[in-house]
């Protein structure tokens, strides 16, 4: 009876572990194993073990290294812009007392729309002849003739970043807004009494109090942006000249268009390692800070 009672909690958690093992651990492990093989889906003879061959091929491939650069550019340019705009909106929304729920509801629309729909929408907004972007820029006299946004490598990336910022900004705003509402008003009053100006209050009170929320936002947004496939694939298909072919699109192309499943798996493992490293660094930093704070 006592033994049964001691085992009971483990019985409760076993299904969760089994499910986690099945849906997370098993695919990851099988992906790692696949990355060490030349996979022959339709040929007799089975898969061939080639060690790190897929990895060395990938790292020596200009397409893959180019896609890493595209991913870095896409993420590192999107994230700060989305953050600054999201913070500004959050600060404005924090001051709104009436109908805040309605405004935040509207704000969630870009986040709630499926990435495929967002991709198509922006693809046509940036169309050279029919797009509203060129129309308004022409009307405002900012440009003199239509810009071929999606047909030139640098403007295509810029267009993809604009769409990405539009999609991610609401998430960042909501997260920061929640954080802002948790900052005690006394802190602002004390800073004011101490003679802090607006920028100082923003830096030493608002952002200092938001640092953990900002950390979480940056971590999740980085992971989502680096993993983003649908938006950019629908908008540009990775073109022109692979200028917007980010790592997930390269993985898709290698694995499912060229059917090099082993090499595609290796690329996915590399991406996973990078994102896991980021997450581990973040978690260590946050937990260390909290531990230091507790000890103090």
């Amino acid at each position: 009876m006592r033994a049964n009672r001691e085992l009971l909690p483990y019985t409760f958690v076993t299904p969760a572990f089994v499910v986690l093992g099945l849906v997370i651990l098993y695919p990851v492990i099988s992906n790692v194993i696949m990355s060490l093989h030349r996979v022959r889906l339709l040929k007799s003879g089975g898969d061939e073990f080639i060690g790190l061959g897929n990895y060395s091929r990938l790292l020596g491939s200009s397409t893959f290294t180019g896609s890493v650069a595209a991913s870095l550019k896409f993420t590192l340019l999107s994230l700060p812009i989305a953050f600054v705009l999201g913070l500004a909106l959050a600060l404005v929304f924090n001051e709104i007392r009436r109908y805040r729920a309605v405004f935040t509801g509207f704000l969630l629309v870009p986040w709630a729309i499926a990435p495929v729909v967002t991709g198509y929408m922006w693809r046509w907004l940036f169309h050279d002849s029919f797009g509203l972007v060129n129309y308004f820029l022409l009307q405002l006299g900012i440009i003199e003739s239509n810009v071929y946004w999606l047909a030139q490598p640098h403007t295509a990336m810029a267009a993809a970043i604009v769409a990405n910022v539009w999609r991610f900004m609401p998430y960042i705003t909501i997260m920061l807004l929640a954080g802002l509402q948790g900052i005690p008003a006394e802190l602002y009053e004390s800073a004011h009494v101490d003679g802090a100006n607006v920028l100082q209050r923003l830096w030493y009170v608002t952002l200092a109090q938001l640092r953990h929320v900002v950390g979480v936002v940056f971590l999740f947004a980085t992971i989502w942006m680096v993993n983003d496939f649908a938006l950019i694939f629908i908008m540009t298909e990775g073109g022109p000249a692979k200028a917007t072919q980010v790592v997930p699109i390269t993985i898709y192309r290698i694995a499912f268009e060229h059917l090099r499943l082993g090499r595609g798996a290796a690329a996915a493992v590399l991406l996973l390692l990078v994102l896991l490293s980021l997450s581990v660094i973040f978690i260590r930093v946050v937990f260390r800070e909290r531990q230091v704070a507790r000890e103090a």
Partner: protein
Amino acid sequence: MPLHRALPAAPGDGAITARRPALLSVALGLLLCLVLPGCGSSRDRQVPGEPTLVIMWEFGGVPGHRDWVRAAVSDFNARRQDIEIELEFRDWNTQRESLISSTIMGEGPDIIRVHHKYSVEFGQLGGLYALERFADFPQVRERIFANAWEQVAYDGQHYGVPVTLLPFILVVNRQIMDSHGLAMPQTWEDIRAMGAQLKERDLHAFTMPGGLNLDTAYRFLALLYKAGGSVLSEDWSRAAFNGPAGVAALTFLIELKRDGYMPTAAAAYASDENTAHWSTGRAALSIEGPWWQNTTSDNYGFDLDNLVLARVPVPAVPPEAGASNTLLDVVMVSITGYTPVPEQAWEVVKALNVDHPVWRTPDPAMGGIPALKAAYDAGVESQYIGLDVLAAAAANGRGWPGHPAVTEIQRHIADAVNVALSGVTGPREALDNAAAEVDELLEDY
């Protein structure tokens, strides 16, 4: 603290301990059934006293074709007591993945409507059923154009019935041509000449999808074939699309773009953008197929009185000695190699795709022209604009090589054309780079 100590004791604890594992087992079992494939039951194909079940997957198809299939299957099921068709529509873009998984598993549909290029890839693997195994195949073969059969053959056997032919032809906006006094272009040089004239009116002579997609590879190949080139060498051991014809075709496209005779943004166009550009009267020419008539009128309200079809122009001086051909795509209906009911599947294929009267009248709503010879008999009336042009192009048609790696080859060609159109590399370098990738790929076969 051990986990069990954190739990408070509760009345009837022992009963919970006894019941929970059983409940959990049931829940876990159900979950596994959802997670793992193969738990779902499927109906037996042949049950005494019941009609034999034949499963048919229709990949792709325009709305008119789909409507017809639904009606034809319903009619077949009502007429035949011995066979029942179970119809499922699938996305055109997923056909290869579906074929791979069903071939590996050895189970799936009995009949599939797919692109002809899969006849080799899956024919040689046993994923498709050779039609020579049916006694009346020679009679069926007689009723369909010979060059259509070439597209579905591998190693002397045929792995699908060619149903729909999609020759690539030049679609021309008559209004633009007439209002500028332009003659129908016969050569690439004619297109250049009309480009200069139309550019003054802010119009493009030519437009095409040039993005990183397979549509791009198709337009390039249509020009390559016209210039006498080939995708692969005769023995399929190396790439040949980077030969003189390929370089000439890509140079021609780049020059059209450079000179403003083709939209600069074509390097980002997929089929949608290209259709919009042509249908709204911004360009005079595009390379399309029999689907164009319905696509441009249904989706963009294009006045079909202004649609004219012509053969794709050729270079004035052929860069290669090969025959000048028209690019031809074929949609075939195949029987899978693992079907437990091949004879019944063959009955269905014949009834729906050879004997059905719909194939005796070329109908634009079906998305392509029929492969059946009878459709072109004297006296047959059709709503197709330029049916004679389409039929002549199909008769001179040549498909993508039926190499097992053809999809990857198409992808490399699309990449090369897009890179060159984007101005990142020159035509020769782009094609040579793609050819090197393809050569490496071919070593695996």
